[in-house]
C-alpha cells in the first residue's frame, strides 16, 4: 500500500479548474518528484494534499485512510508537513520562534528540543542566527529555515514546493543534499515539486510530469531523465 495516494483529484479556484483529475502514488521511504512548467498545478497539488485548497473530486489517501475531507490541522497531525512555495517563513518571528511554530502540534518538550538541536546540526547557519528575525535572513537561509520548520513537525511525509527557487546554485546543491539526507536518515518520505527538473530527477526514485492540471507522464526518475520529450521540454537539452 502506498503511503500517499491521490486518486483522480480535481481542484478549483472559483470556476477555474486547476487540477483536472490527477492520480499520484508515493510509496513509503521514496523521493517522488512532480515537475512541470509554471501554472501547471504543482502548488495546487500540494495545497490539496494539505487540505488548504480542498478538492472537489476524487480522493486522497494517507496510509490507506481518506484525508480528502479533513481540515489542514488534522492532516498535519497525521504526519504531513509542507515547505510552501516562496518559503513563507514568519518574518517578524525569530528563527527559534519559527521553529517553534513548526512544532505547533507537538507537546513532547524533550523531543522538540532534540529536533531543534538536530536541525541546527543540519544547518549550522541557523544555529548562529537563532535569535535573528526570520525576515532578516538571506534567501538561502530562509529556505533552510522553511525546511527546518517543516522538519520540526517530525513529519512522515515531507512536501517541498520548489525549494530551489531563486537560490544560488551552491545553496541549491546544499538543500538537495539535505533533502536526500533527511530521506535516508530520518526515513522521511518526500514529495518534491520542482521546475529544476534535472536536479530533482537526479535524487528522486520516481517522477510525474504535470501539464495544465493533468499528469502527462510518469515513470522512474532514470527513465524520465533519458526521455526525449522531457529532455526537450524540462531539461532544456
Amino acid at each position, binding site marked *: 500500500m502506498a503511503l500517499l495516494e491521490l486518486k483522480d483529484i480535481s481542484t478549483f479556484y472559483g470556476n477555474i479548474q486547476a487540477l483536472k483529475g490527477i492520480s499520484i502514488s508515493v510509496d513509503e521511504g521514496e523521493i517522488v518528484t512532480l515537475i512541470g512548467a509554471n501554472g501547471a498545478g504543482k502548488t495546487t497539488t500540494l495545497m490539496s494534499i494539505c487540505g488548504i485548497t480542498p478538492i472537489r473530486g476524487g480522493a486522497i489517501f494517507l496510509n490507506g485512510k481518506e484525508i480528502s475531507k479533513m481540515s489542514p490541522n488534522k492532516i*498535519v497531525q497525521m504526519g504531513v508537513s509542507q515547505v510552501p512555495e516562496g518559503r513563507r517563513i514568519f518574518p517578524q518571528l525569530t528563527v527559534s520562534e519559527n521553529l517553534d511554530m513548526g512544532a505547533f502540534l507537538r507537546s513532547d518538550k524533550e523531543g522538540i528540543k532534540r529536533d531543534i538541536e538536530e536541525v541546527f546540526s543540519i544547518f549550522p547557519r541557523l544555529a*548562529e542566527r537563532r*535569535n535573528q528575525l526570520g525576515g532578516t535572513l538571506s534567501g538561502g537561509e530562509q529556505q533552510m529555515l522553511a525546511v527546518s520548520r517543516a522538519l520540526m513537525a517530525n513529519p512522515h511525509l515531507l512536501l517541498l514546493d520548489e525549494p530551489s527557487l531563486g537560490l544560488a546554485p551552491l545553496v541549491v546543491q546544499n538543500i538537495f543534499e539535505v533533502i536526500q539526507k533527511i530521506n535516508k536518515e530520518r526515513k522521511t518520505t518526500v514529495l518534491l515539486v520542482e521546475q529544476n527538473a534535472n536536479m530533482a530527477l537526479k535524487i528522486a526514485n520516481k517522477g510525474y510530469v504535470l501539464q495544465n492540471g493533468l499528469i502527462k507522464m510518469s515513470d522512474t526518475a532514470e527513465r524520465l531523465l533519458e526521455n526525449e520529450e522531457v529532455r526537450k521540454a524540462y531539461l532544456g537539452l
Partner: protein
Amino acid sequence: MKTRSLLTDIGRSLLNALWFMILLFPLMVMKVNVTMGVAKVDFRWGNLPLVGIAAFVLSFVWKIALDWNERRGGKAQSNSGFGAAKARLSEYFAKPAIRKSSILALMAFAIAYPFLFGMYHTNVMITAFIYVILGLGLNIVVGLGGLLNLGYAAFFGVGAYTYGLMWKYVGPSFVSAGINTGWLFWISLPLAGIVATLFGVLLSLPVLRLRGDYLAIITLAFGEIFRMVMQNSSDITGGATGISLIPRPWFFNQKLPPIKAATYIYFIAFVLVIITIFVVRRIEDSKVGRALEAMREDEIACQAMGVNLVKNKLITFALGAFWAGMAGVLMAAQTTYINPDSFTLWESIIILMAVVIGGTGSIPGVIGGAILLKLLPEYFRALAQYRMLIYGIAMILVIIFKPDGLIPRRRKQYTFERKEAAK
C-alpha cells in the same frame, strides 16, 4: 522644481477636498427632518465649506508630512545627540534592577494617587484605567491577531449593560431578600466577562473567513447593531435614557460615600489593570499567542503548520471581548449611569487609536496611549471640541513618522554577530 511640486501638492489637495465635499454631501449637508410624519430635507450649506477646508488642510498636511518623512529617510539615520541620548536612556532602562525599581516607583505613585489628588483626578484616572484595560484587550485582537475590530465598544457595552440589567432585574430581588446590593458588582464583573466573551464568539463566527476591509465593515456593523438594539428595546434596556442609579461596589457590607467609593473603584480598576497586564503577557508568551502572531503574518503558512485558523480567530475575539466586558462593569459602576451613547463607533475608534498611537502590540505602548488619550482631553478642556480632529491628526502623524507607535513593541531582536560565531 520645488515650487512646482508645491503647486501640484496644492492642486491635488484641492481635488481631494472637492471629492470629500461630494462624498460627504449627503452626510454633512443634507439632513432629513421628519415633522408630523412628513420628511423634509434640510440643506445645511454652511457645513460644505467647512468640510472642504478641513479636507484640504488635512490632505495638504498629509502630503507635506509624507514628503518630509521621505527626505528624512533618505538622509542616512544621522545619530544626533538626541538619538544617542535616547539610546543611552533605553539602555539604562533595560537594566533589570533599574527596570524593577522604576516599576516599583510607578506602582507606589499609582497607589498614593487617590490620596494625593482629589476625587476629581481619581475619577479621571479611573476612566484612564478603564481605557487601559480596553486598549490591552483590543491589542490582543489587533496587535497580536492582526484582526481589525471596529466594533470593540460593543463588547464594552455588553459588559456595562450586563451590570445595568443585573441591577435593574436582579437588584430588586436582592433588596427584597435583604441581601447587600454591593454584591451585584462582584457577581457582574466575571459574568460580564463571560457574556462579552460569548458575544465575541458570536461575532467571530461570521467573520472567520474575512480579513482586512470586510472584517472592518462587519465589526463596525456589529457595533452599530448593538447600540441600536440597546436604543430601541426601551422596555428592557431603558432605550436612549438608559439605566441609572447603578450601585457602586460596597466595601464588604458597607455602602461607601462617593469620595471613598471613587477611591475604592480606583483600586479595583488598578488591580484589574495589573491582572490584565499579567494575563496579556502570559498570552503573548504562550503557544496560542505565538500562533496568533504567526497568523497575522501568514495564514497559509500557519495552516501548513497545523494551526487551526478558525479556532485561533475565535480565541482572539473571545479574549479581546472578555476584558472589554469587565471594563464595562467598571464603567457602569463608576458613572452609575449607562446609555447607548457611551458605546458608539467613536468609542471604538478612540480605543483603536490608543492602540495604534501607543504602539500596536506593545503593552507599555498601549498603556501609555490609553492614558494619554484619556487624560489630555480632561486637562485641555478648551480643546475638547476638536478632540477627534486632534486625535486624527496625531494618528496620521504617528503612522507616518513612527509607524510602530510611540513606544514600539520591543522584540528580542539580536542580530547575528560574527565575533560570537568565531568562538
